[in-house]
């Protein structure tokens, strides 16, 4: 057993100096103060953070669900225009690390919109920024990313997308790359779509299904008859809502720069055309309202040619060569008969009616693209009255025509066309009376007659009681009318026993084909378009086809058979 002895070193330590202890306390105090200070600092900061941090995220600040530019939807809520976050590829040529020659070649392969030379120029230009591709597909983005060039930048930027591509392109218009509306409703609604209300979509009156039908049928007719353009309008005649409005050739608002040169031109509201015989019902209605025509059996003298002042002669395609009644005139679309009725109405009264119908001013609709009506102006004498009576010498837009028919068949009340869905915030306007209700009602039978037994037979859609009028007008070419180029129009209304919708279809310069037997008149090329459109969309619009129903034909019963009276 071994014993150890520990020597207490403290005893060996020198005695502390009297002043040394105070100094130690002093130092200790200092260190403690420093610690306390730092702790206080941290605690204060924590408290501050606790108080100042706002945790209620979502209530304030940026809501990613509100798009940069508001949506536009159709009357059933189907998106017509949306903003999406699209990939954008850009490059900073001044920060380029790789070999510009190689990179230019690779870029030209991946993004073939520009040539390798263009890219080479761009890459050597020392610019600070340039876009390579807007709205790039993710595959392209990853492929470009794989090039490994740090000067290439990828970002997501809001882009305007039109999911229905060309559908209703002229109604919607399109936006510039800066995101502002350039034409159509995009322009009209620019402030609304970028303003604080942009979270809620704008509802248009357009019905996508009707619009698509109109576009496909018109496009088919346009191709078949080699027309240079076409326009179509479907209008709710009681509210003035435009359910479909199209202008062909087609335009893709996603790429507004591409496509035909005149694709941006809205033929339905900006283009003015002499719409020919489709005006005749207006002339007859004016005469009825003025007390000139009391019955559709009223007779006029319809020679084979009617000489008018200025050495011109009005002719008919189906000359009567004898007396003809008002119903005959309408059924066979007689210029001679209508000219006489127009002359009876008189220049002043005709202008007055046309003014009240809104035909002498740009068409009433929200779009900025509205064409100015061409009228005889100060030269509105008897000759002009007669030609205007059958739709020559006055050029209006197809939408004018649709509105005119709406006025004529909704009981005689004119309302402006609207591209907004009627509802709260967009009430149906009061409207102004143009024709009497009686005239409006009696005209139904007359126009139904045209489709049942006259020039518009091919516009009939079984069960839908279509009524309407064909119009074939020669186009002014180089200052004079040439028989070769025409504008054919059909203005139809259905169902004629209780009119609800107006359908106007127009073909610009259709050519004759073998199955039209060499004719290029409206009854052959554009009337079938209306027939097909009505039979396809009628039921969608709530008009059930019913062969057992028919318009009131008592006034025109005698004319239903073409041979019945001549």
């Amino acid at each position: 057993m071994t014993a150890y002895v520990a020597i207490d070193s403290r005893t060996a330590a020198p005695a502390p100096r009297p002043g040394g202890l105070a100094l130690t306390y002093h130092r200790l105090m200092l260190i403690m103060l420093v610690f306390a200070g730092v702790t206080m600092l941290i605690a204060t900061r924590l408290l501050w953070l606790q108080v100042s941090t706002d945790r209620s995220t979502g209530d304030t600040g940026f809501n990613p669900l509100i798009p940069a530019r508001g949506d536009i939807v159709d009357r059933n809520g189907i998106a017509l225009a949306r903003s999406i976050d699209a990939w954008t590829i850009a490059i900073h040529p001044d920060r380029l690390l790789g070999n510009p020659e190689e990179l230019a070649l690779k870029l030209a392969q991946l993004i073939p919109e520009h040539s390798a030379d263009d890219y080479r120029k761009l890459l050597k230009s020392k610019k600070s920024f340039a876009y390579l591709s807007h709205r790039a597909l993710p595959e392209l983005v990853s492929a470009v990313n794989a090039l490994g060039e740090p000067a290439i930048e990828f970002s997501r930027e809001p882009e305007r997308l039109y999911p229905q591509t060309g559908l209703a392109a002229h109604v919607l218009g399109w936006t510039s790359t800066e995101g502002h509306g350039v034409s159509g409703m995009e322009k009209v609604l620019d402030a609304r779509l970028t303003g604080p209300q942009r979270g809620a979509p704008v509802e248009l009156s357009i019905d996508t299904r009707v619009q698509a039908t109109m576009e496909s049928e018109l496009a088919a007719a346009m191709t078949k008859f080699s027309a240079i353009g076409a326009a179509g309008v479907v209008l709710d005649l009681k509210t003035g809502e435009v359910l479909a409005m199209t202008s062909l050739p087609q335009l893709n608002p996603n790429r507004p720069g591409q496509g035909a040169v005149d694709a941006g031109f809205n033929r339905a509201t900006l283009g003015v055309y002499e719409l020919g015989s489709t005006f005749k019902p207006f002339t007859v209605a004016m005469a009825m309202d003025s007390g000139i025509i009391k019955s559709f059996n009223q007779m006029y003298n319809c020679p084979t040619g009617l000489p008018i002042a200025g050495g011109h002669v009005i002719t008919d395609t189906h000359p009567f060569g004898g007396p003809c009644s008002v119903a005959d005139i309408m059924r066979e679309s007689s210029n001679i008969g209508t000219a006489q009725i127009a002359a009876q109405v008189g220049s002043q009264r005709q202008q007055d009616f046309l003014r009240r119908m809104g035909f002498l001013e740009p068409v009433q609709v929200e779009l900025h693209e509205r064409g100015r009506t061409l009228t005889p102006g100060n030269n509105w004498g008897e000759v002009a009255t007669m030609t205007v009576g059958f739709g020559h010498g006055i050029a209006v837009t197809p939408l004018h025509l649709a509105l005119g028919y709406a006025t004529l068949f909704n009981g005689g009340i004119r309302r402006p066309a609207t591209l907004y869905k009627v509802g709260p915030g967009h009430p149906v306007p009061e409207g102004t009376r143009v024709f009497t209700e009686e005239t409006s009602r009696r005209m139904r039978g007359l126009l139904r007659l045209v489709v049942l037994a006259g020039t518009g037979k091919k516009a009939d859609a079984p069960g839908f009681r279509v009524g309407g009028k064909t119009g074939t007008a020669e186009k002014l070419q180089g200052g004079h009318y040439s028989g070769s180029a025409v504008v054919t129009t059909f203005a139809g209304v259905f169902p004629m026993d209780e009119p609800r919708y107006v359908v106007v279809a127009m073909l610009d310069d259709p050519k004759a084909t073998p199955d039209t037997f060499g004719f290029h008149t409206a009854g052959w090329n554009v009337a079938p378009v209306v027939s097909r459109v009505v039979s396809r969309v009628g039921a969608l619009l709530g008009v059930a086809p019913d062969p057992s129903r028919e318009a009131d034909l008592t006034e025109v019963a005698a004319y239903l058979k073409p041979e019945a009276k001549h």
Partner: protein
Amino acid sequence: MIARSFKSVIWVATVGGAALSCYMVSLRVATERADLAKVEHQILVAKRDIRMLQTELGTRGRMSQLEDWNSNVLALSAPTSAQFVHDDMTLARLERHDATVEERTSGDVRMASAETGVAVAPAAPAAPAAEAPKPRVVTAIAHAPPPPAPTAVVHQASYTIGPKSPLGTEPKKAEPKPERHAKAAPAAKPAPEKKLAAKGAPDNKAAAKPAPEKKLAAAKAKPAPEKKAPEKKLASRGKIVRHPAAAQESDAD
């Protein structure tokens, strides 16, 4: 005494504990808040995804595309006015008129049905063959062997090619039933009809007349080769079933 000297320590501990628990509560709240914010963020992301997908769907299913498919692929067209019905009477008239047994058998038609599982007592002993021109229905009721479930029998009869199919034995047990008139035919189960339809062709008996619904198919007579095995089995039964007077095919119906 001890308590008094530890008083300050206890106070410090109490205050410290209270502060700590307060802090814990606050921390807990903060965690919950953070979770909530995360969920809210997820909702936002999901909504954005929904919007994006809806946009994509809308773009892919745009009207012009649908129209292309409708006209070029599916060959669909808008309903014509004749396809709209306005009142109950017209609707009732639309009901397809199925031929009654009398009408069906106006030609020389044989019908058979197989009831599986349940033994049915014959209504009457086998009647002698009636005069050939007189249309009638001959119903054969085959009692399936007990082990396989009735559905299985039907199934295999239709689709199994294997030689060990229970159906292979079935025809032997089948007893020709006396002609069962009128009401029996509409009650004929679809499966037996199918069997019979298949039966008609293989042994090329001109007489083989399947259920009226399948008449045309059988009349064309050339069966697909892969159907042969079951057909033969059925045919054997068909022989039993077939009425001696079975004669000509008739398409009259």
